[in-house]
């Protein structure tokens, strides 16, 4: 069967997988990576915001003391 993923040779060539199944498999892995990368970006933003807050607190402390 013609498929847009070249499945490795260990998989029997005659497996009758409907063509559209690949789309579901790719979508599942893509959604997973979207979540991993997306949350990674969220973590970085949260850290930057926290650092900015600490910085402004430090400078306020320096000015006040």
């Amino acid at each position, binding site marked *: 069967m013609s498929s847009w993923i070249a499945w490795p040779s260990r998989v*029997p060539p*005659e*497996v*009758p*997988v*409907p063509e559209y*199944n690949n789309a579901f498999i790719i979508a599942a892995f893509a959604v997973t990576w979207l979540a991993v990368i997306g949350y990674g970006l969220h973590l970085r933003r949260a850290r930057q915001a926290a650092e900015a807050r600490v910085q402004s607190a430090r400078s306020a402390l320096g000015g006040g003391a």
Partner: protein
Amino acid sequence: MSSDTGRRTAVFVIAGVIVAGAFAYLMLGGIEDNLEYFKTPAELTQLGPEAYGKTVRLGGQVAPGSVKWDAASLDLRFRVTDGAQEIEVHSKGAPPQMFRDGMGVVVIGRYGAGKVFESKELMIRHSEEYRAPKPGERPQEMYRSLIKGEKAS
């Protein structure tokens, strides 16, 4: 400080009561209707005329050898079994690709006096088993033959 500790204890106790109450409700509460997703052929047969005309879910196995598929009219007939009782099911359209003899299914539809379950929706109920095909066995054999039949028409 002591009143602060007292308040914390109070919150702790209240939280415990809420948590225990919610758990008891979920365990013992009367929400069984939603917890039983489908009826077995034996249960549906036992209900008899009471079940006629109502939309119900029927679940079981596709009785081996019972599948009749007409590719030209996309007409599918098979029997659902729970080992004790069988019910004849009539469905329109191509079934999900995992449909085959012996596969678990849940059908949504109506059961009537004609003793045929008219299915509006056909779902596969997969088992918890995942197996590589044995030598000589091909995955999705059934689906392949169904699709072939469809193309031949």
